[in-house]
């Protein structure tokens, strides 16, 4: 059966496509502008001449960042944070979701533990008490202050738990009949079939760790310990301070300072910080619809 295409329908389709193009453009134009600014000459940027193509192409901003600023140091902190944080998140999600996916008949304390975790979503203690706990545990200025407080992302755990619960009972019973214990069932049966959902929460965990900045700001006293986003935040909010601090730190700066400005170096740093997200976000769409929507909304 074909839908008859009338003239008004054609006009609508053309307008619609044009409109969607404009909207889509509005979503990515700022990033193209950012890229152009980062490769442009300082004078052209200050004069507001740069739109979507670099004016007076130069890579001096990137050289400045690589040679003089703490950008690389904070990049390493962020990488370290993701390398510890993401596997830790996944391990705890799996270890928690599997027992909680059992029925109440198999695991009697199930609902007690479920509520134990869900309450932490419902009630948030707030800034100061959380800070005091991290301080009391002696984690200030340590990378662990960035990964331990959020080690179990409860929402992701619920998604995985709901998915595991939707698995056919026969699958688990077959494993049990074959003599597999819980650990074996989890590793050999449940995990392989749960991979799409786990991949979803893994991607979310990566994004979360990469984008966090606030905890870095309050738990880290020294700028060398700042993860990338926290470092960028200080640059964004207070670029003059950043330029001044940098002049104090290193000797070979004078040759750059005439060529770069806070705006061009800021743009270059923000663009570099975006790269990991740009690499993984095309995958997020695919997993999001299948993994998260299926896992969170019960039929």
């Amino acid at each position, binding site marked *: 059966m074909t839908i008859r295409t009338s003239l008004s329908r054609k006009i609508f389709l053309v307008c619609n496509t044009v409109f*969607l193009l404009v909207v889509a453009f509005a979503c990515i134009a*700022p990033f193209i502008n950012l890229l152009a600014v980062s490769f442009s000459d300082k004078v052209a940027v200050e004069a*507001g001449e740069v739109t979507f193509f670099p004016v007076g192409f130069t890579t001096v901003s990137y050289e400045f960042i690589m040679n003089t600023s703490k950008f690389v140091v904070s990049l390493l902190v962020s990488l370290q944070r993701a390398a510890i944080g993401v596997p830790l998140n996944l*391990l705890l999600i799996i270890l928690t979701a599997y027992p909680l996916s059992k029925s109440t008949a198999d695991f009697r304390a199930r609902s007690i*533990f479920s509520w134990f975790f869900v309450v932490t979503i419902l009630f948030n203690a*707030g800034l100061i008490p959380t800070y005091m706990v991290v301080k009391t545990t002696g984690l200030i200025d340590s990378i662990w202050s960035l990964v331990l407080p959020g080690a179990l992302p409860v929402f992701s755990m619920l998604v995985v738990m709901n998915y595991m619960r939707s698995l056919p009972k026969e699958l688990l019973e077959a494993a049990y009949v074959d003599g597999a214990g819980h650990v074996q069932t989890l590793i050999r049966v449940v995990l392989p079939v749960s991979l799409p959902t786990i991949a979803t929460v893994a991607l979310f965990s990566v994004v979360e760790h990469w984008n966090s900045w*606030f905890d870095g700001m309050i738990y880290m006293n020294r700028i060398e310990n700042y993860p990338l986003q926290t470092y960028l935040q200080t640059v964004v909010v207070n670029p003059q301070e950043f330029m001044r601090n940098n002049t104090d730190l290193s000797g070979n700066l004078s040759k750059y300072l005439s060529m770069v400005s806070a705006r061009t170096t*800021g743009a270059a740093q*923000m663009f570099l910080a975006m790269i990991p997200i740009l690499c993984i976000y095309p995958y997020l769409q695919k997993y999001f619809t299948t993994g998260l929507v299926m896992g969170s909304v019960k039929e």
Partner: protein
Amino acid sequence: MLIPAVVLVTIFSYGSMAGVVIAFQKFVPAKGMFGHQQWVGFQNFHTLFSMPNIGAVIRNTVIIAVSKMIAGIIVPVAFALLLNEVRNVFTKRFFQTLVYLPHFLSWVILSGILINLLSPSAGFVNILLTKLGIEPVYFLGDPDVFPVTMVITDIWKAFGFGSVIYLASLTGINPALYEAAVIDGANRWKQTLHITLPGISSMIVLMTVLGLANILNGGFDQIYNMYSPVVYSTGDILDTFVFRLGIEQAQYSLSTAAGLFKSGVSMIFIIISYLLADKFTGYRVF
């Protein structure tokens, strides 16, 4: 298997929950979190609610959050409907991929970009406005415009991702319904009105109800990175207020009291919204 998670959650979540007692103390940090502090009952709350700007802060929080919530439902639904009219799968995927990019970037990066774009002197948006003969707008510096800027930029960040959910539920509508409607003589607009919208209405209700929980979340990351003392009168929300009070002015007890007030109200809204979600759409967390 549960032990590691239970231990960590006990320390960091329940430990800090126990820490809300600070709100009822005259807290002296040197004595330690569970040290011998002086209890003052509800005095901190009393002080808090007699502060001159607390009314404005609560009002700003609710205005910004509610505006974001309403726009955050209308825009993604409208976008999903328009995108659904595109039949070509490749084009559809192309648009979808572009519009949800901002969602995955942090407010630190986005505000850095936006501050440059919206700058009244050399910002791209204002240069464009000037060329069109419009006066430059102080998007981030004018107290009247600031909340609007916050709502628009928040939608700009989130609508693409929000529309993914609606697109997924649009594909779940039975095509036979459309065929029947065409036979009955319904045009595209009538089909949208009578089939498509009712088809995704349960998802719209669900998202609305779950959004209720955020009634006191104006968006700390976004506002903290873009505001300035000039716009405190309309842009200061509970979270930014708590932060300034607690970290910058070291008023630990007052700040905790404000945070506790916010958490308490939020918790009530979360519970109400889950009850409503269960009642209207059968949604349960587990």
